[in-house]
């Protein structure tokens, strides 16, 4: 089997960066679900998840538990890798490049350098260009998104406010990123240098946005998505796919809700289908309003 013959990690570089952006393109129109056990991973795959995020605690429980939240046990992640055939992602702390090295060593498909975990570095993000494995990073605005891409991220997601079941932050981040993209597109060529200075990002990336009218990598919605209508809302606002964290396995009937959210992402602009998918899903996750929480995870890593 070809898989068993692989003994060395491929070298990082432009070739890997392209392959890693291309994997994100294959995930488009799909739902990436947080799972904490092989059993949940199988439920997610069976429901139509295009990938799973393996973690020890979903964001709502991380919020409830408090303390320091770290990368998951590699043994637990391997159990999930063995349980499903779809891509398996895992989170490392912002700036914790050794956690990222560990995840690459266990052949993870995608690393989420995530504000959901406690940051390990309050200044520097990981230099993701030094890795062969792809990274997804959260962003609240175009400035953060392009900085993460400059550092080597091959996929972006909104930060939203994880573990709340409240979609408001994901909505405002997606709207802001897209409004800023529209602004960059409207600029004259000779205004791009000043815009790069203002955004604190390389001018080449600003020029890429200006010429293409989009981020140079795939952009998903994440943080607070709890219902099929939430997922369809994010898609109509321009998301290319959706992460669902606590929203599924904190709800009354996870398998049914997972299937419904997958269906709503495929048919996001068909209200009749979204209506049918929204029926009889049981309890949604309880949810907490962002104004009722002390810890805004989206403030981590700018």
């Amino acid at each position, binding site marked *: *089997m070809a*898989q068993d013959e692989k003994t060395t990690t491929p070298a990082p570089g432009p070739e890997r960066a392209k392959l890693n952006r291309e*994997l994100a*393109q294959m995930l488009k129109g799909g739902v990436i679900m947080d799972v904490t056990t092989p059993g949940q991973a199988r439920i997610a795959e069976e429901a139509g*998840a295009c990938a799973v995020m393996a973690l020890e605690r979903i964001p709502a429980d991380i919020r409830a538990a408090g303390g320091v939240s770290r990368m998951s046990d590699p043994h637990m992640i391997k159990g999930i890798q063995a349980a499903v055939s779809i891509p398996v992602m895992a989170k490392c702390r912002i700036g914790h490049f050794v956690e990222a090295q560990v995840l690459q060593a266990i052949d993870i498909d995608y690393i989420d350098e995530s504000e959901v975990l406690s940051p390990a570095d309050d200044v520097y993000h990981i230099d993701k260009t030094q890795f062969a494995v792809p990274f997804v990073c959260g962003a609240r605005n175009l400035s953060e998104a392009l900085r993460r891409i400059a550092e080597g991220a091959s996929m972006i997601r909104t930060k939203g406010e994880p573990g709340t079941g409240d979609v408001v932050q994901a909505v405002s981040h997606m709207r802001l990123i897209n409004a800023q993209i529209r602004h960059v597109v409207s600029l004259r060529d000779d205004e791009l240098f000043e815009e790069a200075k203002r955004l604190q990002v390389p001018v080449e990336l600003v020029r890429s946005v200006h010429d293409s009218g989009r981020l140079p990598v795939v952009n998903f919605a994440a943080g607070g998505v709890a219902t099929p209508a939430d997922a369809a809302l994010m898609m109509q606002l321009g998301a290319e796919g959706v992460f669902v964290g606590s929203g599924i396995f904190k709800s009354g009937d996870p398998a049914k809700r997972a299937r419904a959210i997958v269906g709503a992402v*495929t048919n996001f602009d068909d209200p009749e289908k979204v209506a049918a998918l929204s029926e009889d899903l049981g309890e949604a996750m309880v949810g907490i309003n962002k104004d009722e929480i002390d810890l805004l995870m989206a403030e981590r890593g700018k």
Partner: protein
Amino acid sequence: MATAVLALQGAFAEHEARLAELGEKAFELRGPDDLARSFDRLVLPGGESTVQGRLLEELGMLEPLRERIEDGMPVLATCAGLILLAQRLAAHDDKGTPRLATMDVTVERNAYGRQLGSFHATADVAGVGREVPLTFIRAPRVVDAGAGVQVLARVDGNVVAVRQGTQLGFAFHPELDPDLRVHQLFLSL
């Protein structure tokens, strides 16, 4: 007439862009209602085959599409699409479920392992041309092909492109490269 691009999940927009560059009209198949529209070609894009296969089944789209393919409608299937066409699946772990099952091949999913096993290559592809750029993302390979199946290309000994009548199956992603020759072959069928 037009080409229908299955748009349940994955890289369908990239196929639409390639077809548009060649002046071909294309529309998206998102549900059973779209099957009533008029089309004479089908594209099955890359993405996650488990997601696409399950949605095809759930939306009741498998049988109508299978009938059209068996009646000779040209199909371009890439990566996950090839898995949907295969009559038999193999894998080191979970084999998955055959879906359209119109092509007499056995396809092994995730044949090169996980994302760190993804790679670019170039190869001559019969009917397409010389030195075609090939992008393999968590790609499958054809491990067995029936007598009616023509092998169009191999990479490192692995069968990566096949044709059975008007069905084209590729383990790689021509939709990700600017080279239009694969889509030209498809539109010539």
